[in-house]
């Protein structure tokens, strides 16, 4: 076989796309070795494109074994050596090594970011026999044929070693933190109770949990305070409007009564009419954080889900690389070409043509990313039927892209100050005068339209009613995955690629539950232990500082070795402290785990006896699970309900909308979850939905 150029990609889909784009006939040939796919393309010479499976190498300790800590010596090893579930990476690496031995040129075409650079670097260094120094780099932001061809013709002469060093530092520091702290907590609990449960924490996970715990404490210790709002119903030209008292919050009942008494039966005079016109600028293009937040608020998708969908759309060459922090759209992406291609879609035709008729200038944000522009549609149209969620995200990206080129919207606010017997009420109106970009982003726009009829100063207005509303101050809202992600971004902890995973880990470890995130007993206990014995681990300041230093490696302003040494310096005393307190930590954690396991099985208050709690129980006799009342053990209530014996059952934390009884969710692998009301007399029975 002739010598060829070996291109390494991050994922199989990208390998197929790159090979097809580079083959002169557009028909790359698929081959397989030991079940590992690779692609053959013919261009100036034979090209072999072989994919990785994400990370094929990882950081691991020098000494084998999982039951010890501290661990400060590590090396990069193939994943199949370090991870139990990564056996398939062995054949993958064997195939890559085999293909590399017959190549005479090497190109790293993994995603151009920290993770992609590390993946390519490790493969070239370890699997290809030290080819990282001679390999070239392919840089692209979309998987379209045009861009891939251009990237291949304009290869970067070297790998981006600064990016690689930054990536190595990040992986190594995170590994050191994760492995030492997680082992310290897990082994402490295991040694005390004899039972194994992974209690993890990490460099970013701890500070993230800190945000949640602080909010949880504020909510659970919250005491509302009473206040009142006074409003007036006003008739203008036969229509009724509601005006608010100028003082938005009234703190005493006495004052409310005075206002009501004074205004009763009186008319109002429009004292002052203030009309303001303002421009509402178009939104900025999506970076990954903004896309995740928007998808959460519009569709309820978790950041992890949005990232996965965006990644699939990217691999289908429908959108550009999603893991970007840029809010810039450079002209080189060819705005016009994209809009022309999008105008084939009937829903976008009119809008795209309207934009094409004018000069195209995007409303960019401040954030930049040296490697990629903001997320934008490539202009390619789907070649397969997209899933509903994929369709939604693609449409959102397309409409956002069009909206950034739109004209500013012109909106008008009207504020009428009304005097009622010396008391002032404010009537507010708001309306759009020129839609501008709002039309392009139509289904996703949230603007309030409250037009007011013409009111002139001195006009007498009929007051139909002046009334008060009893109010209470509310606790701060719970974080949801979207708002937590934004908080992490603002605090500068984690990266665009890792934040969604960290939030997911908090759920997986059962430190939090529910969409409106509630910290569990276990979450509290783990956080309190960390804060008590190693406050530096949950310090947001320290985490951000480390984050900034790791970023500096990328711009040659910091050295990986220094960051690593300093991280170890911080970690060493922490781990020693944890080791010396192993017994007390183990006891506390074990109790919390036990409590958490009970908490997980609590369904809700018993609707029959009213004093007991319904809980998921297992019968020793029949080995079946069922729902029973805790008062059964006191011989006071024998309420029991059968449960499905297959699938995973968990309390939903919500009551049935029909009968008010607590509900459970039953999950079967690969099937839609089933929300079940176990009240045999519930009116929902037979309707299918609760």
């Amino acid at each position: 076989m002739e010598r060829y150029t070996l291109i390494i990609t991050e994922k199989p889909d990208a390998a197929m796309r790159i090979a097809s784009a580079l083959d002169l006939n557009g028909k790359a040939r698929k081959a397989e070795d030991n079940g590992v796919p690779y692609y053959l393309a013919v261009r100036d010479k034979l090209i072999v494109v072989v994919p990785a499976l994400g990370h094929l190498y990882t950081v691991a300790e020098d000494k084998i074994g999982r039951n010890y800590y501290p661990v400060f010596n590590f090396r990069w090893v193939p994943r199949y050596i370090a991870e139990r579930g990564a056996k398939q990476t062995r054949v993958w690496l064997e195939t890559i090594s085999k293909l590399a031995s017959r190549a005479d040129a090497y190109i790293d075409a993994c995603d151009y970011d920290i993770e992609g650079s590390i993946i390519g670097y490790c493969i070239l260094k370890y699997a290809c026999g030290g080819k990282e120094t001679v390999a070239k780099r392919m840089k692209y932001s979309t998987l379209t044929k045009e861009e891939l061809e251009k990237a291949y013709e304009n290869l970067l002469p070297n790998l981006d070693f600064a990016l690689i060093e930054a990536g190595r530092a990040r992986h190594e520091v995170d590994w050191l933190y994760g492995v030492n702290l997680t082992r310290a907590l897990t082994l402490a609990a295991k040694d005390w109770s004899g039972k194994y449960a992974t209690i993890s924490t990490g460099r970013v996970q701890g500070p993230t949990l800190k945000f949640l715990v602080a909010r949880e404490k504020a909510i659970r210790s919250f005491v509302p305070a009473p206040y009142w709002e006074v409003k007036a119903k006003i008739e203008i030209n036969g229509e009724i409007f509601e005006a608010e008292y100028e003082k938005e919050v009234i703190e005493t009942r006495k004052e409310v009564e005075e206002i009501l008494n004074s205004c009763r039966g009186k008319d109002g005079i429009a004292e002052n009419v203030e009309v303001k016109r303002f421009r509402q600028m178009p939104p900025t293009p999506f970076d990954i954080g903004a896309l995740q937040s928007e998808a959460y608020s519009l569709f309820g998708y978790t950041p992890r889900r949005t990232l996965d969908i965006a990644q699939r759309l990217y691999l289908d060459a429908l959108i550009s690389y999603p893991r970007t922090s840029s809010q810039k759209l450079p002209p080189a992406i060819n705005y016009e070409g994209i809009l022309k291609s999008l105008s084939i879609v009937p829903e976008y035709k009119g809008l795209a043509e309207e934009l094409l008729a004018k000069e195209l200038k995007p409303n960019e944000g401040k954030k930049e990313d040296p490697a990629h522009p903001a997320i934008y549609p490539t202009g390619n149209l789907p070649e397969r039927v997209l899933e509903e969620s994929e369709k939604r995200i693609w449409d959102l990206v397309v409409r956002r892209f069009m909206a950034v080129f739109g004209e500013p919207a012109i909106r008008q606010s009207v504020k009428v100050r009304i005097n009622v017997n010396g008391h002032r009420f404010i009537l507010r109106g708001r309306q759009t005068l020129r839609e501008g970009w709002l039309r392009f982003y139509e289904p996703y726009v949230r603007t309030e339209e409250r037009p007011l009829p013409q009111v002139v100063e001195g006009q007498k207005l009929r007051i139909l009613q002046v009334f008060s509303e009893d109010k209470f101050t509310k606790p701060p809202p719970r974080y949801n995955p979207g708002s937590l992600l934004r908080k992490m971004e603002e605090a500068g902890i984690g990266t665009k690629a890792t934040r969604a995973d960290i939030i997911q880990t908090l759920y997986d470890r059962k430190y939090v539950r529910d969409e409106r995130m509630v910290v569990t007993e276990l979450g509290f206990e783990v956080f309190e232990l960390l804060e008590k014995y190693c406050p530096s681990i949950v310090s947001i300041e320290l985490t951000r500082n480390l984050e900034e230093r790791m970023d500096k490696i990328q711009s040659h302003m910091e050295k990986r070795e220094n960051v690593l040494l300093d991280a170890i310096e911080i970690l060493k005393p922490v781990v020693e402290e944890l080791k010396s307190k192993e017994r007390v930590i183990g006891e506390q954690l074990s109790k919390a785990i036990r409590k958490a396991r009970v908490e997980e099985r609590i369904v809700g208050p018993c609707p029959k006896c009213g004093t007991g709690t319904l809980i998921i129980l297992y019968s020793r006799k029949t080995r079946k699970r069922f729902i029973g009342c805790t008062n059964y053990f006191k011989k006071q209530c024998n309420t029991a309900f059968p449960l499905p014996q297959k699938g995973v059952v968990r309390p939903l934390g919500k009551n049935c909308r029909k009968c008010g009884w607590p509900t459970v969710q039953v999950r079967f692998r690969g099937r839609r979850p089933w929300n079940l009301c176990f009240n045999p007399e519930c009116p929902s029975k037979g309707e299918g939905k609760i």
Partner: protein
Amino acid sequence: MKCAICSREAVENGYCELHALAYRNILKKYELWKKATGVSWKEYLSQIAKNPFTGEWAKEVAEHLVETGEEHVGT
């Protein structure tokens, strides 16, 4: 000594750190309630105990104070 409400260690006024935080909030907010509605300490406690916006720990402390009949300092 254990917290009067849960199994944690008591650190302040017979409460654990978390319930003590709620207790402090209860004391602080009473001044606002008294000014706003002229409510008595007892009535205040029973009102916040059933208010849907009151946090779980604050509710537990309010119920505990109702049960024990603890008077407000200064009332």
